[in-house]
């Protein structure tokens, strides 16, 4: 391994490759900030550039830089505008946006940057040490376990149980699961619930739904509730740093979620989204008392957890790509295509046949994360100033990016009608105090939940897989605990409080 690291160091520190890292990170961050352009589309745009480089090492370093740069930049629109552009940063908005509303946008961006840096760096260390061994772990998961993992991911909705909205959160989750069934799945050769509309045949797009659920109602709220935009948040963005106490609180969260996120990222198909939801759910359950109540209202834990988890998961997704040649996500599938176009076939022999590629990419991840941190920290005050823009300029700005995001994803104007329609529904739901995040969680996980469940049913001809596969059972039990624990705790606390009142 040491020899490998040396080869990697010498390759990664060539001037050309250093430039590639920096260019990749810059492009990724800036395009990633725009809602609607996720890492997948940015990488697809960059592929011709990467291929003309000719050198597979430089190309992969460039594309990897774009990848984590985009994830890094993606959190910005989640925090500032409540407009998550990628599924992996939805959980970031849960606490990031409330922080921005409280006037702590600068601090939120700093925490996101530091947590992302830690997640990416810890992920790269784990990748370096465990990549060869992990290729087998990635294959331990069958459809049954993926199904169970999706159920665990859904338990993230329990985070909304504490606010006394269990029923509403459940209804929204189910609505999200229902929306996910629209269109054509992998399992049937006929479309479902499309109302005969071709535009719904591929289902409702994630970006459209995310914009409709989060960004549009936000803009509506700013219009309908002038007081909300006026109070406090514009003047106080000077507060950029988090305190020492907050650092102490976050350190274990970041540590745990970097490791957990990495291992979830290793599983083909799971990726950054599940990692961030799970990270959020787990941290909320670990937190006690007041710290738990803070989740959803601007908790530093709630922001640091998904941010470190999604970056670590991105790094983790390189394990099945590089060691097995199996793309675990749409983004790594594009990377695989680019590698094959450059005459590199990732797989078990990549490390022995072309170690310089394998190690240079890993080393470049360290450099890339450092570049991102150095690049982002000084820029935060300027980026955060977006919120200081007067409301009558900010609203059109949000609307523009919302509509643009939905349009460029699909190149289809019907998408705009769907966006506005869903946006109106979402605004009404928000006035009625329904949490919208569970709907999005249900929607994102729904397809994978159904596909993997149906596959397991077909393979075991029934529900036997739950009993026959201990890991499936274990994950399902974990999901049950994650859902039930918060309400059990709440009841116990209530009973105790009543007991005290009775003088018992």
């Amino acid at each position, binding site marked *: 391994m040491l020899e490998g690291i040396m080869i990697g160091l010498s390759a990664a520190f060539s001037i050309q490759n250093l430039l590639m890292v920096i260019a990749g990170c810059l492009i990724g961050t800036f395009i990633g900030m725009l809602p609607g352009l996720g890492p997948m589309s940015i990488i697809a745009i960059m592929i*011709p550039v990467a291929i003309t480089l000719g*050198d597979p090492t430089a190309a992969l370093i460039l594309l990897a830089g774009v990848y984590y740069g985009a994830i890094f930049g993606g959190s910005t629109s989640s925090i500032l505008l409540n407009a998550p552009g990628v599924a992996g940063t939805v959980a970031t908005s849960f606490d990031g946006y409330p922080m921005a509303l409280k006037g702590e946008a600068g601090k939120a961006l700093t925490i996101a940057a530091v947590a992302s840096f830690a997640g990416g760096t810890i992920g790269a260390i784990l990748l370096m040490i465990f990549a060869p061994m992990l290729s087998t772990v990635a294959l331990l998961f069958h459809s049954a376990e993926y199904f169970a993992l999706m159920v665990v991911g859904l338990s993230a909705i329990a985070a909304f149980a504490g606010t006394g909205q269990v029923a509403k959160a459940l209804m929204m989750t189910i609505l999200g699961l229902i929306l996910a069934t629209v269109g054509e799945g992998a399992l049937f*050769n006929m479309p479902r619930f499309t109302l005969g509309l071709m535009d719904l045949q*591929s289902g409702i797009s994630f970006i459209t739904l995310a914009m409709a659920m989060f960004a549009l109602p936000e803009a509506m709220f700013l219009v309908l509730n002038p007081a909300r935009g006026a109070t406090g948040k514009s003047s106080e963005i000077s507060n950029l740093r988090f305190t020492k106490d907050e650092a102490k609180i976050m350190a274990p969260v970041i540590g745990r979620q970097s490791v957990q996120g990495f291992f979830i990222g290793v599983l083909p198909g799971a990726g950054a989204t599940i990692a961030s939801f799970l990270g959020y759910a787990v941290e909320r359950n670990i937190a006690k008392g007041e710290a738990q109540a803070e989740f959803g209202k601007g908790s530093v834990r709630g922001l640091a957890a998904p941010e470190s988890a999604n970056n670590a998961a991105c790094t983790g997704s390189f394990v*099945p790509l590089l060691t097995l040649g*199996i793309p675990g996500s749409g983004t790594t599938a594009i990377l695989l*295509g680019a590698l*094959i176009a450059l005459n590199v076939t990732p797989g078990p022999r990549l490390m022995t046949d072309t170690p310089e590629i394998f190690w240079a990419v890993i080393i470049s991840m360290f450099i890339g994360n450092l570049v991102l941190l150095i690049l982002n920290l000084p820029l935060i005050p300027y980026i955060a100033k977006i919120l200081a823009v007067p409301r009558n300029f900010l609203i059109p700005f949000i609307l523009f990016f919302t509509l643009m995001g939905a349009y460029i994803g699909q190149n289809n104007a019907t998408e705009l009608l769907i966006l506005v329609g869903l946006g109106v529904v979402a605004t009404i739901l928000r006035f009625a105090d329904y949490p919208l995040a569970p709907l999005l969680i249900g929607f994102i996980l729904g397809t994978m939940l159904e596909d993997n469940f149906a596959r397991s049913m*077909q*393979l075991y001809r029934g529900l036997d897989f739950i009993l026959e596969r201990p890991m499936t059972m274990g994950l399902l039990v974990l999901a049950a605990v994650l859902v039930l624990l918060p309400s059990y705790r709440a009841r116990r606390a209530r009973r105790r409080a009543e007991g005290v009142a009775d003088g018992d």
Partner: protein
Amino acid sequence: MTFSMTRRVAMAAAVASVAFGGMAQAEAHKVLDQLHFVIPGGAGGGWDGTARGTGEALTNSGLVGSASFENMSGGGGGVAIAYMIENAESLDNTLMVNSTPIVIRSLTGVFPQSFRDLTLVAGTIGDYAALVVPADSPIENMEQLMGAYKEQGPDFAVGGGSVPGGMDHLVAAMVMQAAGEDPTALNYIPYDAGGEAMAGLLSGEIDALSTGFSEAIALAEQGEVRIVGVTADERVPAYDSAATFKEQGIDTSFVNWRGFFAAPGTSDEKVAEYISALEAMYETEAWETVRSRNGWVNIFNPGDDFRTFLEGQEKEIGDLMKTLGFL
């Protein structure tokens, strides 16, 4: 270290020569300034590889100034077809890649359109289908695979990256039928994409995988899977250690063609330009590099010949699907 250095130098030299060659040719016969590819499926799949490979060859050889790509998955390709039809007037210099599934899916009614609703440009390549097993599987040939299938019945799961009744399923069923088994009894497990199906195979969830030959070669060369049968008539030079079904006594042959379509109403002059760019592409070194790397077979089938071929295939597959009970 020395080895890797020389390798790198060789690679740089190769790249340089390609670049210079491209420049020289660019001045000689550039046919189109810009070409946009619509890919009806996700990245990393067969359509994606075909479009990107063709785009790479066309630009590297200088026949086309620049190429761009757009993945538009959904509706089994129906979304991209609808896009081509709806936006026909604004789609200059845009080609959609497609393949055998456009025939299968319009037969089963997945989407209301068929190839007749588009402007046919040309069929360009073919890819055989293959059945693969994990490299550590005891199954080494079709005889053993059929033995395992007879023994395990529905416990013997065959996966693929298409919906039931889609191409991967059809190929597996064809093989079973040709081997004298009831094709409808096959336990076919559908996956969302070829990559996921391959992960399913390596994890041991399914026993065999029906997939495209070119996708199988990459993993076979890495020593991860074993190809037990190919739907070609004769062994394919790109990977000649893979036996055909025919030589193993199973009379099945199948070619998944891939080709390009333009928006409806595209002018004859424009179609002629597309065809001449694609035709000239076969003569270039850039294409040969892409083709041999992917194990594709050249079949050039432009314009009216393409229409005749598609109509013939539509009838053949339709009859087959009726026999198999999918229609």
